[in-house]
């Protein structure tokens, strides 16, 4: 199993070396960014069982915060008071984006404790819409529909010694790959630990979980913060890659895209969002090549999602896994460490 993983990694690392079609690289980069966002949503929707449909808000907040910090801004918060920030290096902007998104995640996490189920869905959707309307209307800060453009690209390095600039596609591909792997590892560590078990317990049977000491608020908030911060990171990378950000980044349709990726791939599994991400990153391209109009594409996605929910309710990854094992288990069990089994006494 390990060998397969390393082989995969080697393959992924090699792609920019032989893939000369820049458009394909672009598709891979965008797919990767969405995959990171989907992985983060999976933590909240899949593992913790929270119906959060405002995820795009965290993505967009990461994008806007990072862009604004790296561009610098000047706003009147009161008629005579101005707040301004000089342009900062992009990596600092990205960090701010992650922190800001995480902070909003904290707020949502705390709210989710009071408001559960269907009402929580509505709160999260509303939250994302409010943020979108703010981005659209607070023109002084965000340029509204005119968009923030000329967003600087990421530069990393030791001043004077060397510098890597993430202007071109291959560099961004590697950035997305590295960040993606880091996020995957972080999520895996989290869900395979006591914290992950607590989240799964809350999803499966909350009264039972609390009866053995699982603190509901603490783990809902933890899941939301990590999830939001990761989505914010994806947004920040996106902003400095396409280098133009407008309020459309907050459209509900992007949340839907992430949800589709997670659900069809398999919510509550580590591989699910990756499979879902690949499917729904590549599907638009395949359909576009077949000359199918975007509206029809979306109709297909909608129907596809309905079909998956009906026939493969746990998603593709568990379905394949069950077929492989010949047995019925749902999402990933909270896996254990590498301890050898004790001999029975």
């Amino acid at each position, binding site marked *: 199993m390990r060998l397969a993983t390393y082989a995969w990694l080697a393959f992924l690392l090699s792609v920019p070396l032989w893939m000369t079609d820049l458009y394909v690289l672009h598709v891979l980069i965008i797919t990767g960014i969405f995959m990171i966002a989907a992985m983060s949503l999976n933590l909240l*929707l899949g593992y913790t*069982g929270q*119906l959060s449909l405002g995820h795009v808000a965290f993505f967009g907040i990461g994008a806007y915060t990072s862009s604004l910090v790296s561009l610098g801004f000047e706003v009147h918060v009161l008629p005579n008071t101005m707040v301004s920030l000089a342009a900062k290096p992009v990596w600092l902007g990205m960090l701010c984006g992650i922190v800001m998104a995480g902070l909003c995640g904290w707020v949502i996490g705390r*709210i989710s404790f*009071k*408001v*559960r*189920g*269907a*009402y*929580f*869905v*509505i*709160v999260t*959707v*509303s*939250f994302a*819409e*409010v943020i979108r*309307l*703010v981005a*659209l*209307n607070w023109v002084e800060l965000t340029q509204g529909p005119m968009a923030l453009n000329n967003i600087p690209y990421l530069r990393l390095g030791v001043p004077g010694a060397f510098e890597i600039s993430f202007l071109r596609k291959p560099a961004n591909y590697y950035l997305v790959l590295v960040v993606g792997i880091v996020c995957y590892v972080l999520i895996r560590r989290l869900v395979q630990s006591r914290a992950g078990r607590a989240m799964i317990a809350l999803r499966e049977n909350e009264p039972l979980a609390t009866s053995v000491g699982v603190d509901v608020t603490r783990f809902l908030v933890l899941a939301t913060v990590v999830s939001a911060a990761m989505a914010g990171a994806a947004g920040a990378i996106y902003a400095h890659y396409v280098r133009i950000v407008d309020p459309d980044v907050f459209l*509900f349709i992007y949340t*839907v895209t992430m*949800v589709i990726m997670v*659900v069809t791939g398999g919510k509550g599994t580590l591989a699910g969002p990756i499979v879902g991400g690949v499917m729904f990153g590549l599907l638009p391209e395949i359909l576009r090549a077949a000359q199918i*109009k*975007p*509206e*029809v*594409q*979306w*109709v297909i*996605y*909608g*129907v*596809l*999602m*309905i079909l998956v*929910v*009906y026939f493969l*309710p746990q998603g593709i990854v568990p379905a394949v896994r069950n077929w492989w094992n010949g047995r019925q288990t749902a999402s990933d069990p909270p896996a254990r460490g590498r301890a050898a089994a004790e001999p029975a006494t």
Partner: protein
Amino acid sequence: MDQLLQHALNALILGGTYALLGIGLTLIFGIMRVVNFTHGELYAFGAYMMYMWVMVLGANFYLALPLAVLLGVVLGGIIEIVLLRRLRGADIDTTMLVMIGAWIAMQNSEQFVWSGVAKSIDTPFPSSPLVLGAVSVSWNRLFVFVVALALIAGSYAMINRTKLGKAMRATFQDRETAALMGVKIDTIHTATFAIGSGLAAAAGALLGPVFVVYPTMGDLASLKAFAIVILGGLGSIPGATIGGFILAFMEELGAGYVSSGYRDAMGFLLIIAILLIKPTGLFAQKERIG
């Protein structure tokens, strides 16, 4: 002061249609516990049906209206039977996801058929408004208001005076007992979804000629409907009615005195505020969170 009166009048008229949206959703959400993302699409469907009958097929405006509503009822029934029936008893995420899938499919079908260009619908009303002292109102909007009130009254009567309404109320209160007492839950669900969808379609059919018709018009409608339901309390028709008017007032006053750009945000801010302060809404008939 005149401005205020004008805003209030506009809000009153808008509130009527909002109330229709809210009543439809409170019935669906309350009785079936489905997070109905297609509600806004039925609203858009109603508007597009008006467009089709009046502008494309040249039918009489006053005939097209009930026809559009009827088609909305039928579509709602179809959605329930085809999509939701087999999900009876599934958890809320599953139905929600199916509704999202349906919403995407519906909206993009609409876009495909009608294209994204906004369409307007001709009305038989005189174009110059009726002036009442300091305020003025277009005949179209007046018509909308009257019809909306009639439909609200009709919904109220249906729920409280008919056998079907009684069965619906019973199912809302206690599903198991209602089933044990002979209420056919399947039929009630289909009827509820159909009626709720019909009301949304009515709102769309009424407002379509007032504004313009475009494929994404349902999105905001869905969310506002949820705001109204939460504001008024789940399952309460009076609550949804009053909630609809409150939302309309907040939007009008917000647009008039704060900024028109944030007008649509009013609904969402309202949702968030209500859910944080009093999650059961103003007139909740049953104390329940989620």
